[in-house]
């Protein structure tokens, strides 16, 4: 009995081993075959996107896929620094699978200078930056006389405020206001002023807007790279420092000024007398959703006002910050022609309207602001304000060393409570020069 049963077991073991081996061979062969077939079939373009509006981006990728290629979404990390690091690692290693990438405008110059972005052919470049594209956004995609990306959506900051607070302070918001006026109005009427003062990129956004608002800039002769002229120590830099100091010393400063970010001051809009706050375009949707959720009343939302970014000095027009996303084509892509075509498609006016309506990411093209769907979703004067802000906006310095410049400013201008117009701008200019020359560590 035992023997009888033992024999078949042995055989069955052998058979099962053979079956496993056969299965493994089939899997291997299948893998090779599918690899072969995918190489000869239509290529997939990888589009590295930041996690803003992924749902619409995914549908754009589907819509813009053709019979010749598919577009596949690849998600980048949430923080801008991590996004940049990951893309740089891929591109520095000449990754041929990075076909399309969503880039924060400040990094376009850096990536283009490294030779990691495909320069757009002249005709494509002309359409990518034609007159319909708002000046502030068009400015972000150029580097060294070439165009290196397509503006997709544009972000900008405006002054958000409680109408009741401005009224109480007797501030006429239909006319341009200065930072000084805003800070005093808030301080005298129990209100506060919301800014981004933590040690991070948005603090540099604020500093840059203040400097440009005073008619200056952080650096000039940007194309010279390390040898660029450093101008943060100029009078405009001092004006910027004066505003920061005035706010820090004022009762209008929010308790978490030194660690504040885009989210921290949102809640203070409807606390007490309210606030004046400089912030990006998402603010409107943010409060509107709260009304829909029942956390905010319709009257409270009606009390929300918006105005152009405050002026640093009375006589000079403000230069609102510019953000958003540009789409670049990887220099090592094996399908760069398809990728250029795809990039054009995902940045078309129709695509921009979809992003604006579904995700609240505002268009970089002027004509898209007139789209019926968009005008239904947002108040007309707000759309106009955004459009004008992007058009007049002042981008952060375009430089292959932007990350270094930003970090150097952060380490010398933080905390806002320690900013002194007599020393901070000059100190930061010296430090920035040392860092760029490799004489100091960041």
């Amino acid at each position, binding site marked *: 009995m035992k023997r009888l049963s033992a024999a078949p077991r042995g055989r069955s073991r052998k058979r099962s081993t053979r079956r496993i081996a056969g299965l493994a061979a089939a899997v291997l062969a299948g893998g090779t075959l599918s690899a072969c077939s995918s190489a000869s079939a239509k290529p997939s373009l990888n589009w590295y996107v930041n996690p803003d509006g992924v749902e619409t981006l995914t549908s754009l990728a589907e819509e813009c896929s053709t019979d010749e290629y598919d577009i596949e979404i690849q998600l980048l990390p949430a923080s801008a620094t991590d996004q940049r*690091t990951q893309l*740089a690692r891929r591109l520095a290693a000449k990754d041929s699978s990075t076909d399309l990438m969503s880039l924060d405008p400040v990094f376009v110059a850096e990536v283009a200078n*490294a*030779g990691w972005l495909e320069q757009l052919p002249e005709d494509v470049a002309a359409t990518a930056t034609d007159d319909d594209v708002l000046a502030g956004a068009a400015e972000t995609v150029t580097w060294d006389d070439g165009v290196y990306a397509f503006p997709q959506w544009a972000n900008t900051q405006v002054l958000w405020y409680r109408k009741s607070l401005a009224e109480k302070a007797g501030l006429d918001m239909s006319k341009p206001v200065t930072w000084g006026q805003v800070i005093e109005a808030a301080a005298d009427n129990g209100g506060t002023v919301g800014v981004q003062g933590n040690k991070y990129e948005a603090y540099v956004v604020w500093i840059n807007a203040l400097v440009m608002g005073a008619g200056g800039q952080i650096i000039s002769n940007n194309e010279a790279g390390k040898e660029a002229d450093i101008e943060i120590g100029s009078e405009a830099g001092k004006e910027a420092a004066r505003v920061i100091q005035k706010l820090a010393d004022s009762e209008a400063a929010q308790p978490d000024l030194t660690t504040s970010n885009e989210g921290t001051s949102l809640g203070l809009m409807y606390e007490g007398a309210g606030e004046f706050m400089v912030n990006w375009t998402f603010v409107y949707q943010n409060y509107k959703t709260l009304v829909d959720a029942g956390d905010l009343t319709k009257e409270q939302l009606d009390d929300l006002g918006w105005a152009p970014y405050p002026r640093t000095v009375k006589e000079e027009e403000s230069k609102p910050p510019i953000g958003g996303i540009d789409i670049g084509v990887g220099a090592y892509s094996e399908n760069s022609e398809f990728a250029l075509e795809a990039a054009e498609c995902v940045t078309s006016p129709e695509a921009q309207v979809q992003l604006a309506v579904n995700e609240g990411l505002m268009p970089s093209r002027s004509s898209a602001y007139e789209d019926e769907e968009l005008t239904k979703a947002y108040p007309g004067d707000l759309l106009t304000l955004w459009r004008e802000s992007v058009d007049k906006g002042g981008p952060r310095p375009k430089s292959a*060393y932007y*990350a*270094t410049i930003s970090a150097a400013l952060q380490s010398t201008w933080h905390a806002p409570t320690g900013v002194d117009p007599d020393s901070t701008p000059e100190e930061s200019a010296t430090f920035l020069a040392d860092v760029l020359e*490799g004489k100091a*560590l*960041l």
Partner: protein
Amino acid sequence: VSSTYIATAGEDEKKVKKGPTKGRPESERSRAENKLGRNLVLPAIIVMLLVTAFPMLRALYLSLFSYSLTAPEDREFVGLSNYVTALSDPLFWRDTGVTVLYMVVTVAIELVIGFIFAMVMHRVIFARGVIRTSILIPYGIITVVSGFAWQFAFSYQNGFVNSWIPGLDSTFNWFAETTPAVIAIMVSEIWKTTPFMSLLLLAGLAQVSEDMIEAAKVDGATWWQRLWKVILPNMRAAIMVAVLFRALDAYRIFDNIFVMTAGAVGTESISFLTYRQTIEQFQLGIGSALSVLLFLSVLLIAFLIVKLFRVDLAAARQEG
């Protein structure tokens, strides 16, 4: 009691060290075996050299340049200037100070707690497996995970630490200032790596001869005397290995800082500084110079510890 024991232990060590070299001449067979052994490890050594030597030499080479990944055309040879910059920068020395502090405090505490754990694991009679396993669990957890866990624990919004420490304000923010932030990072580091220390010490403990302890007991040595005069001196090699490993590890501390503070409020270590220059700023030149300096400091620490404990590794191996 004490002096005799130390003397004997010392003499034994010397004898063992001298034994094989002076006593017997090497036989034909053992020479052939040694040769075979060398030949067998040769391929591995060659591969190791290729894999480790290339990046090291490359870093050494890059450290002589001013080189930003995003401005490859601006790359220029600057000689030792990156080293001068690093060594003359206050930030480098501050970070070195912080790193040494992390190393000294965590290794000291881990040594004490690790030894207690090792004793428990060595002497425990009941539920041996369960106790040993539970002591070792933290070491099995990924450092990043432990960093997050402790960050949540120390958070004033959803952590428990504030409510567990009597007299501490419930809104106390551990990550707002240097001292508390450094303490929080150290706690995570100690929690995570003490089991490793205790494992190495347990191995040393197992090598201490029971006869010697027994003899000391018969001579009337108290528990404390047996520990200080018999057990610890005989574990010197194991302690050195444990301290050496942990000190070198601790000097390169990175994960916990990355997760818990991202280097803010003066908690940055030398590794983190190197990471920021190389990965975040793309400054390969200065970043490489810093990593070479980090490597040299690790060598220096290893040298100092070996000197301090006056044990040579070869002798330690033969004793075992």
